């Protein structure tokens, strides 16, 4: 099977600090790829490069086998790489529907939409409701509820629903459970399963080993600015992963 997203020899320096050194990454269709690494290993730089927030000094990114370049998260998103940021990038004072369609609103057909630029609220609400129920999030009676009235897990749900709604090829999730309680985290992990079930591959960055081991199909271990190894969570223990990450143990050759 061909990988859907490939990063080849990515390098990035900040002054004399090497954040990425010939880093590689492959993401295959339908999988959840966990990305772990110690603080300062360069994993956030890797992710920022993949989602368009940082431009690498050298190296290339291939999406569906084609080389792509982007200079902003918006360009990456247009190509189908959606990111769920740690802070979620939602507007709390706007409704669920407004947030899901922010920057991609649906206009009314005909004169009202074309010349008066009126929004088709009904179409957006229906679509938002559909997306949320597909992810098993619905039972929200009021799709026009303000996001600030939602709990952390529910907000995460809205952000994920938004990220998977627009012809998305890849979803990057940055520490999705970091700010959540136990039960809410559980819900988000289930959510990751739902997204995978719909055939959208996910890159999951997390510090939480149990979470990564629970949902990831493969785990990419990042160390000293590059990929150290990729391990199968069924064949290794969490303690092994931590040992590889910190250099306490020799990494397996793959």
């Amino acid at each position, binding site marked *: 099977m061909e990988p859907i997203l490939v990063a080849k020899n990515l390098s990035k320096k900040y002054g004399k600090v090497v954040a990425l050194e010939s880093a590689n990454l492959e993401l295959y269709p339908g999988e959840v790829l966990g990305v772990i690494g110690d603080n300062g290993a360069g994993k956030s730089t890797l992710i920022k490069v993949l989602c368009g927030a940082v431009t690498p000094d050298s190296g290339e990114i291939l999406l569906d086998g084609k080389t792509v370049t982007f200079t902003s998260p918006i360009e990456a998103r247009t190509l189908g790489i959606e990111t769920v940021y740690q802070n979620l*990038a*939602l*507007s709390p004072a*706007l409704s669920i529907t*407004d947030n899901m369609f922010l*920057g991609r609103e649906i206009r009314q057909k005909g004169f009202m939409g074309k010349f008066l630029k009126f929004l088709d609220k009904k179409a957006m609400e229906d679509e938002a409701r559909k997306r949320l129920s597909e992810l098993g999030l619905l039972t929200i009676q009021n799709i026009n509820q303000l996001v600030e*009235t939602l709990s952390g897990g529910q907000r995460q749900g809205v952000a994920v629903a938004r990220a998977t709604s627009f012809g998305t090829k890849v979803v990057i999730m940055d520490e999705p459970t970091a700010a959540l*309680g136990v039960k809410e985290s559980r*819900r988000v992990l289930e959510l990751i399963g739902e997204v995978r079930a719909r055939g959208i591959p996910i890159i999951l960055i997390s510090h939480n080993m149990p979470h990564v081991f629970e949902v990831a199909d493969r785990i990419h271990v990042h160390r000293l600015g590059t990929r150290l190894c990729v391990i199968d969570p069924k064949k290794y223990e969490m303690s092994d992963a931590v040992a590889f990450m910190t250099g306490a143990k020799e990494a397996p050759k793959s």
Partner: protein
Amino acid sequence: MNKISDDISKDLKDQPNFSSDIGEVDQDHHTFDIGEQSNLKKIQHFLHGNPTIVPVIILVLSVIGFGFLAGGKFFSAFNLSLIVQQVTIVGILAAAQTLIILTAGIDLSVAAMMVLASVFMGKLSVEMGMPTLPAIVVGLVSGVATGAFNGLLVTRLKLPPFIVTLGTWNIFFALVIFFTGSQSIRSSDIEIQAPLLHFWGERINLGGFVFTYGAFLMIGIFIFLWFLLNKTAWGRHVYAIGDDKEAAELSGIRTDRMLVSIYAVAGLVVAIGAWVSIGRVGSVSPTSFYEGNLDSITAVVIGGTSLFGGRGTIIGSLFGALIVGVFSSGLSIAGLDVLWQRFALGCLIIIAVGIDQWIRKVSN
């Protein structure tokens, strides 16, 4: 009990609409601190969802209050129509100001911008012989240009809007003095040379209530902006930027470009206000509306729009302007000194912002 289950049970209580597929939670230990607060909390939630209610209540109460205080004179058709006429200009400036404040900005230059536009209209048509309509167009364009100039300074130089508009307020005011040489353009000259400039000052009598065309235009501007803010993507983006600029940027909104367009639209509204102001005042005076900036901010704030952006309604600002009008009219009919009008207005501002802060706490 542990903190997590506490948080979740609180969340579940707050949102009966949102199903709890998170799992069942032991709620018993949590019930005691809800009972007493619930009514106040309910009010807080209600106001949070309906920010225009507060100014409406204040407006109704103040009308009733001044009715008692000032007697029948206050309710006379003459007085009520006078209030509407008096708030026309501040109302239009407040409409423009609302757009800026919704983006978490502030515009101290609106009144100077308006006087500058009215100077262009008057100077070109009355003293330089340009036909009136093109002169008005030049004035409107100057409004868009000065607004966009503010927007560019805010986005390109990344300066706080307060500082940018504090600067441009002085610049625009200086330009007004430069172009006019501190001379007013007299009402009688305008009447002869360019009567069209007085158009919005024309009156019609509806069963004893006298309205200027300008008052209708003001209401038209509010309705138009309401549609713009609530029915178009542009309007939603205004709120998104004020709410969380970074989130808006990550959602794909080109925030800098949006901000420039918001300041430009506000400039256009201000320039329309310039035309109306010539009709209202009669002449074009370089020193008029010197307090227009602060009056417009007062109206917006009393109208329930948050100075921190992203929250508020355009219609609230109309009510805010009317409240200011009712207060000054009521207090002066009741025979109170002007100083007490200002005193009352000051209290009103502080109360309005206090209520806003309290309502905002709901989200935490």
